[in-house]
């Protein structure tokens, strides 16, 4: 099975029982660099897919929580090289891993080397929030050579024609931003968001995961049946920041 298919299959498998799959995000090296491997293992044990955030100085699609986490990780010397080395050391992680990174750290690493290094570390996919489909050809081609996914995002303001192109161009899953805005704000899930998610699902051959602003069991219940998975980011980062058990929090989110 190719790496990107592992993501799709993990989400479909988890969602088969009716509950949305759980895609969990952590900023690598936050709050403490020394705890990264332990946090990653704990989260991978409780989630279906893990997104590892590569810190960047100017995370323009993220809210204050992830911005703060990114700067704190950078202050501890966290780099993409270090993350890949740490991840490569962890064996037997059956949960597919994605890297979520802004484009510039990837360009600095070198797009041609990136795919191979990521594959060696066992990374199954990438999310690059400031790389629109129109500019993504080079990275997408490099990653595809290793079977690695480049996940595309869609938003409530995306026009129908573009929505179709994004869904067709994505691998792994389609990341449906549930609100316009940056990450981390709590949001009640209104009817039009449900309608939007249904629209995305109708366009997408891949599973659809909803993200941005998801932090409560009530929201997950509301989304059940309308999405294949939910992405939790800022709320989980805050759990780690408070020193609480991420696995337990994720289980509560699943209603277990």
């Amino acid at each position, binding site marked *: 099975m190719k790496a990107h298919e592992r993501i799709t299959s993990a989400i479909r498998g988890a969602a088969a029982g009716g509950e949305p799959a759980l895609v969990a995000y952590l900023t690598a090296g936050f709050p403490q660099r020394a705890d990264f491997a332990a946090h990653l293992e704990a989260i991978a044990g409780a989630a279906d897919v893990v997104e590892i955030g590569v810190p*960047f*100085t*100017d995370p*323009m*699609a993220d*809210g*204050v929580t992830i*911005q*703060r986490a990114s*700067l704190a990780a*950078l202050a501890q010397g966290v*780099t*993409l*090289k270090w993350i890949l080395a740490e991840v490569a050391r962890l064996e037997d992680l059956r949960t597919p891993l994605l890297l979520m990174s*802004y*484009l*510039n*750290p*990837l*360009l*600095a*690493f070198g797009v041609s080397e990136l795919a191979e290094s990521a594959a060696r570390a066992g990374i199954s996919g990438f999310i690059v*929030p*400031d*790389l*629109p489909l*129109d*500019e993504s050809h080079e990275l997408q081609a490099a990653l595809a050579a290793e079977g690695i996914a480049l996940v*595309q*995002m*869609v*938003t409530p*303001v*995306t*026009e129908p024609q*573009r929505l179709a192109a*994004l869904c067709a161009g994505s691998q792994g899953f389609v990341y449906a*931003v549930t609100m*316009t*805005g*940056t990450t981390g704000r709590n949001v009640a899930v209104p009817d039009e968001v449900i309608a939007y998610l249904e629209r995305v699902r109708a366009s997408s051959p891949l599973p659809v995961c909803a993200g941005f602003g998801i932090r409560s069991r009530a929201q997950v219940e509301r989304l059940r049946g309308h999405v294949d998975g939910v992405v939790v980011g800022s709320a989980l980062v805050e759990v780690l920041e408070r020193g609480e058990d991420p696995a337990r929090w994720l289980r509560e989110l699943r209603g277990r």
Partner: protein
Amino acid sequence: MSVAALPETQGLLEALIAGQLPDARGRFGPFGGRYVPETLIPPLERLARGVREHLHAREFQAELAAQLTSWVGRPTALTHAARLSGRWGAQLWLKREDLAHTGAHKINNAIGQALLARRLGARRIVAETGAGQHGVASAAACARLGLPCTVYMGAVDMERQAPNVGRMRLLGATVVPVTSGDRTLRAAIDEALRDWVSDPLGTYYLLGSVVGPHPYPYLVRELQAVIGREARAQMLAATGRLPDAVIACVGGGSNSIGAFHAFLADGAVEIIGVEAGGRSPKLGDNAATVAYGRPGVLHGTYSMLLQDADGQVQETHSVSAGLDYPGVGPEHALLAAIGRVRYETASDAESLAGVRALSEYEGILPAIESAHALAAAERWARAHPGGTVLVCLSGRGDKDMPTLQQTLLAAPAS
């Protein structure tokens, strides 16, 4: 990037002169483009359509021309700096953007984009500001057109440009202090983008320089190109010939692109952009992006960038808030790569000396930003006795009084 890295140098310059750049993807050769979250694609597409439809249409141009004449005070004067010419050994001419309404070239762009925003049905305007000049210009343009305006400004800049904060508030704008990141222009742009992402279709982002995602570098250049068009005609009228050199300061690069554009086809005219050399050439001690940066992506555009080996954007230093930015417009990156514009640096100290010289010899207190260009002009003049040099005096220095109190006025007079 060296000239050799771009084999089609002549072709790219010709395309730029012919108005073919940016291309349909927003590229200036390899630079530019649109690197933004998906949420911003619809408003950027809408803006690009609006620019295509209105910017060069007769009706919009007439509306803009009327505002530029009756409200901004254009054309701005061309001044012969007779006493400094005598001291420096070459004829120094100043394009007086400091005389434009609100005290800097920023108003050319602000009123143009505010007119466009109104046409596109925007409910509110957000803007970022470094030195405060773009914030003041945006606040003024929004007041003029009756649009609500929110300006994001780094906390560090609010302190060193305090007079401009009060001006913005008097002009009816909401000024939001930015305490995240480096608390200067770059963090303010991050925050303005976040605001825009929250309401992409109702909010218009009035970006202040030739940076950011397509179509901003193009839109802002077109609105600032009036500087060079006027200056070129004024130089011909005043001296009967073109200057030997044109010099302007470069932060994001809007006054310089505006000044340079009309001269790109004049092969005999040397064009020099002056970046903030700060305290030293060391990373973090300056804001000289073309001089010391490498290509990368920040704030939606692929251009030169002050960054470390891991692609993290570096904090910058300059005595002038308006130049204190780790990126530069993609068109400058191209002009540097093809060698049409030479980029130099002027240090904090050289620029402050430029403030003193222009104040004492010509009775003009320039912005510290603009004084970077004066420092380079002095170097050029001393190396080219008898030559003629045109400097874009991008803004006035009143806003810099807090900084000048701590520097020039704190030191014993020479």
